[in-house]
């Protein structure tokens, strides 16, 4: 059985169930790298130019780790466009080449170019090429592709309906994610904060210093872009930015546009990465919209030097600020502070 390695980084959080279903249907064994830890980050940092954004460095570290796990190949897709006319960051466009150049001792790469803009035929051919190493039977490959798509749709529906985060949903469906640290899962009478950003920023608890877990421990109910309806995200983009530009715009601009309008949401936190080109544009758009909306908003910029203390201080200050604003408006009983303290 061929062992296919999938790094638990970057687009893992968005597409893992799809990829897992595809390769398993073709008879391969899927091996996922363990969650990000310090050695992963250090392995990535050592191999890439400093300006490279942190999530890509982390991805490199995961590819290194997969070699140690003894896989036959590593799956590294080049996602160019998921819709015609959209544009993806250069790092995604050339991800396999980047890995080949920087992680020289990695296992052989299994590449695919996904460019919906090139048309259905090209996409189908690309998928068949991906399946060749496993089987020569095109019908078998087609079946695997359909199973993959089903798994993907199911994954998205699960998160939306049950209000789960990707790691939680992956865990539930037999995947290899790890659930967030949450000592207290309040879902009544607490502050509701929407966190928006790319999944590899929101759900990698190492690089974001367990952001979601900390918020939950403060008694906050956290909602995410994956929990919003797809049309809501599209509308959010149109409202804030006129038209969609980036492949991964929905989870930042779209989610921000959607949650900023939601009266049930008390505050929005955008989690972006220093050096992320798309984020530099989206963050500005979101910031301006938040100001117009007058909704409590905070942008958190992560990089490998992000100190935990600074992050914690900002989170505390933000939650405090929303709390005090609400009390100032008289819509919050003093007893709520007691409720939250009990949780901790």
């Amino acid at each position, binding site marked *: 059985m061929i062992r296919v390695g999938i790094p638990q980084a970057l687009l893992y959080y968005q597409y893992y169930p799809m990829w897992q279903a595809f390769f398993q249907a073709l008879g391969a064994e899927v091996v996922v790298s363990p969650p990000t830890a310090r050695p992963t980050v250090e392995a990535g940092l050592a191999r890439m*130019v400093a*300006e*490279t954004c942190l999530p890509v460095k982390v991805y490199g570290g995961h590819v290194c780790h997969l070699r140690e796990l003894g896989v036959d190949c590593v799956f590294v897709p080049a996602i160019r466009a998921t819709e015609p006319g959209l544009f993806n960051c*250069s790092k995604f466009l050339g991800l396999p*080449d*980047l890995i080949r*150049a920087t992680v020289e001792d990695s296992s052989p790469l299994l590449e695919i170019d996904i460019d919906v803009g090139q048309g259905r035929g090209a996409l189908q051919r690309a998928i068949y090429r991906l399946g060749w190493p496993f089987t020569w039977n095109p019908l078998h490959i087609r079946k695997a592709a359909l199973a993959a798509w089903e798994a993907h749709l199911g994954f998205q529906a699960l998160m939306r309906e049950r209000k789960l985060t990707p790691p939680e949903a992956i865990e539930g469906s037999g995947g290899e994610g790890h659930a967030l640290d949450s000592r207290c899962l309040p879902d009544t009478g607490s502050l509701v904060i929407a966190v928006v950003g790319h999944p590899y920023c929101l759900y990698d608890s190492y690089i974001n210093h367990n952001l979601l877990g900390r918020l939950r421990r403060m008694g906050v109910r956290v909602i995410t872009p994956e929990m919003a309806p797809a049309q809501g995200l599209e509308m959010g983009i149109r409202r804030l*930015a006129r038209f969609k530009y980036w492949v991964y715009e929905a989870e930042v601009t779209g989610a921000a546009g959607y949650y900023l309008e939601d009266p049930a949401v008390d505050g929005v936190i955008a989690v972006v990465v220093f050096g992320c080109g798309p984020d*530099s544009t989206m963050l500005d758009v979101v910031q*301006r919209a938040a100001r117009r909306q007058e909704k409590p908003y905070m942008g958190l910029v992560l990089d490998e030097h992000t100190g935990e203390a600074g992050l914690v201080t900002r989170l505390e200050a933000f939650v405090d600020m929303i709390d005090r604003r609400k009390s100032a408006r008289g819509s919050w009983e003093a007893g709520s502070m007691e409720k939250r303290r009990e949780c901790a």
Partner: protein
Amino acid sequence: MRISVPYVGHLWVALRALAARSGLELVEPPRPSQHTVSLGVRHSPEWMCFPFKVVLGSFIEAIERGADTIVMAEGPQLCRLGYYARLHEQILHDLGYTHVRVLTFNWQEEQILGFARFLRSILGKERPWKEIVGHLKHGLEQLVLMEDVEKRVHYLRPRARDWREVNLIWQVAGPRISAALTGQELREVRRQLLAELEAVDLDPRADPLKVGFLGEFILVIDPFFNLDLEDELGRRGVEIVRSSWIAGWAKIWLFMEMLGLSHGQEIKKAARPYLKRDVSGEGLQTIGETVLHAQEGFHGIIHIQPFTCLPEIMAQNILPQVLRDHDIPVLEIIIDEQTAKTGIITRLEAFVDLMQRRRIREALAARRNS
């Protein structure tokens, strides 16, 4: 409508003539300066590309001079550049310039015909097509001449007995070309400029180093952005060779890539072993040009890029592999609003020294082996 366009490269050489010929009200922003940069940086997202910030500053200066319309490129797949117009508009409106309109043009989809239509829509539908085409043709010819002169300047500066003689001609080239409003005047200016350049006194012993100057497009073509590095290199006896040119770019974007651009295909082929895919911007070109220049025996490469430029970060990560196969020294220069020229010049001088010493060493080694 009082229109302004970013002050990038030699664009305004052609635009001034367009204004004079067509009666279009164009507002020329001042040449970018530290003040432009400060203005732009103040109101731009922190790690946005440097060109965005300077262009924003430039727009604000143009608006202060009376512009009420900005023309910018827009459209997908132009790296972050395609997003500029939207952000610029929001920023300018938030700053209080709510009367300003941002007109955008989608290069990739519209190409030359679309641009002609766009120009006509600005000038007025009553203008005959013949006039529009005439303006376009003239503008393109001016840019082509400007760049032909520039190429010659790159060749002559390191070979002249006194580089100042070359610079004197270069400094007035722009205004003279701008002032030529008809085809005939332009031909005359071309004849004169090239003759003056040929008359420059050359040092017969000059043996300049040959260096490839490549990287992100705007930084390569615009002396403000690249801190006048082409001049600094020319003075130190280095001949610059570039592949990024506005007229060249105009040919790619306004016409189709097939027309006489085998060089583009050659670059892609050279890059293939290291980078199989386009990563937008000039990422692929940087890799491919480095390979080609190494094969052509150039003495070094100067790779210039704005801080956080995504395609160039890809190139930076992939270049070490290229350099393992092709022995050519590369100087990485990363520019943003905080860059101090002194530090760059120091590195530049060290690099020029390094290339000279390598050349001497190789010559000695060759002599020993023969």
